[in-house]
């Protein structure tokens, strides 16, 4: 935000997504705003049900409507509001300007088509390449994501690939049309740690090579610490804290962020005798929030937290928190 040397490639303002269910409305995304610049990686962290995936799917109209309805907000991709464009225009944007990587590569690849076909499909659709050019592009992409013997594997089906290789195929498809924004929804959660390390390395490498903006959704704070430039923490359908990666990990200001960081054990450093616990359950989403979503689990909650929903307020350079009681600035939390 402060140094305006590059404009935002993706800018989301006040996004509000509601599901109409038989039991009433479920407000899954409440006034979510964020932005990404080209070449930047924004991490979005949250537990299941915090609204991170729904947010991303709302951006490009991937949610079935009904029941989902994007009520308010702006999604500006290079200045064009994706919530206002025609469905046909949106189809052009999906897969070309915005690439998606999903969590489970087995369920997001079509098992009855060859991998080659699935990579060539968006290239032919969006870039208008002929079959031969598309094939060359597919081979190039598979090589880019580090699949050995790329040309020979185009005619293989998804089940003939291992989990890590399948995720590479997904990445290749997402990158097929040189997207401006890549949205990765828990792309390494289904993978083993050693395979996850390979995928993270590929993403780092591609990011510096291709310079696209990446929004990386995960519940794994460890992954985020390693790759993100900025982090948004989601809870109960809202962004509760947003900061650059160092301040977020070293100086978290929202009680939820701080508690979350303390509950996770590490493989090095000091070992806590007892794990810190966030008591209680994550909130069930329902009607539009009228109070802080974290109030029932927050050790610092006071009357105002039960009466009013806090808005994000700036507490430092590029650091904002939605809390009436932002924790004091700490010099050094360390790795504890």
């Amino acid at each position, binding site marked *: 935000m402060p140094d305006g040397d590059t404009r935002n490639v993706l800018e989301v303002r006040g996004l509000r997504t509601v599901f109409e269910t038989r039991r009433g409305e479920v407000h899954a995304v409440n006034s979510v705003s964020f932005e990404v610049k080209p070449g930047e990686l924004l991490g979005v962290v949250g537990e299941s049900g915090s609204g991170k995936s729904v947010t991303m799917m709302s951006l490009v109209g991937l949610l079935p409507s009904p029941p989902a309805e994007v009520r308010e907000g702006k999604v500006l991709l290079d200045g064009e509001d994706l919530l206002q464009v025609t469905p046909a225009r949106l189809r052009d944007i999906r897969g070309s300007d915005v690439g998606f990587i999903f969590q489970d590569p087995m369920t997001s690849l079509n098992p009855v088509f060859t991998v080659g076909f699935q990579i060539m499909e968006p290239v032919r659709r969006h870039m208008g390449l002929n079959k031969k050019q598309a094939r060359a592009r597919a081979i190039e992409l598979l090589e880019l994501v580090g699949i050995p013997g790329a040309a020979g594997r185009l005619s293989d089906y998804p089940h003939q690939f291992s989990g890590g290789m399948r995720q590479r195929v997904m990445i290749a498809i997402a990158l097929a049309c040189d997207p401006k924004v890549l949205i990765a929804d828990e792309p390494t959660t289904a993978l083993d740690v050693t395979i996850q390390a390979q995928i993270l390395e590929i993403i780092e490498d591609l990011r510096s090579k291709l310079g696209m903006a990446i929004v990386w959704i995960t519940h794994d704070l460890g992954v985020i610490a390693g790759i993100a430039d900025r982090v948004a923490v989601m809870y109960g359908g809202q962004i509760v804290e947003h900061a650059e990666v160092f301040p977020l*990990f*070293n100086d978290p200001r929202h009680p939820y962020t701080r508690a979350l960081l303390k509950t996770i054990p590490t493989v090095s450093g000091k070992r806590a005798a007892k794990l810190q616990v966030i008591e209680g359950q994550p909130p069930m989403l329902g009607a539009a929030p009228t109070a802080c979503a974290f109030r029932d689990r927050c050790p610092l909650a006071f009357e105002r937290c039960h009466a009013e929903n806090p808005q994000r307020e700036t507490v430092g350079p590029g650091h904002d928190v939605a809390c009436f009681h932002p924790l004091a600035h700490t010099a050094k939390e360390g790795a504890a």
Partner: protein
Amino acid sequence: MTRPLVEVRNLKMHFPVHAGILRRQVGAVKAVDGVSFDIVEGETLGLVGESGCGKSTCGRAVLRLYDITDGEIIVDGRAIGQESQMSLRTMRPTMQMVFQDPQASLNPRMTVGAIIGEPLSEHTRMSRAERIARVGELMDQVGLNRTFVNRYPHEFSGGQRQRIGIARALALNPKFIVCDEPIAALDVSIQAQVVNLLEELQGRLGLTYLFISHDLSMVRHIADRVAVMYLGKLVELAPRDALYDTPLHPYTEALLSAVPEPDPAKAGQKRDRIVLQGDVPSPANPPDGCNFSTRCPRVMEVCSRIDPEFREVQPGHWAACHLHDSIRPSGTTRRHTEATTMVEPNKESNP
């Protein structure tokens, strides 16, 4: 007293592979292939490894949920390796299991009371009133509200469901519990609650755990000793701190270096992390020699010929790796053994 409660020797669990019209056996998936370890009474042994390495099969085989291919299992002084499932019934109360997915391991048509009480009606002669009292007691122990006794599993959250599974495992006062990925399906903020509960119960009831997990940081928290499994075999077994601070096996080293740390400063230094190339080979067709030789960054010529022996390299610290052979097989391998120089992960040459 440090008597082993569980002794496992050379445990093998091979699943036959049938093919052709005669369904002849054409091979076997060696899910667990010669695993040996002890678990001392009151301790937690962590068993870590990647998916498909055989850790869950190992845990289930130790409880004799399978008819094992070969090996010896002694639990609480009784050899159960070859016993029939029928005669094992008297042993079941001693050894219990907590499963990974609390959704799948709880019968959706049974109330919580019925689920927790089922082992009691199977294995004890308690009256109905005694059973109800015991169920209430168990629910207190795992932190479930007693008034929920007539509810069904779907009315609970993931963490609470896992508490039901734990209460059921505790019903018969077991000594030994195999926890198979008990927290893998839970949210980060709920994982700590369940792990703390397991630790607290261990302290109170003197339980012995085999804690199976792929989460190395959580295992570091809960386990006293840790065993690392790769492709059906143990590659390293050591007290917790020794394993995490000075791993002896290159696989353990790679595994630890692959765990992302929730600290951006450390993540920055970790740019030189060891990234293993390739995937785990199929357990139906493991490589010759050392199972890890196809991905090992410090592979030597001998590794593809001879399977390294799982032996005690330092007191209490076991490893199966030729790097720690006391007698080097040949002079050419010596340069690989300088413990600090690690082969750089190939950054430029992508295979």
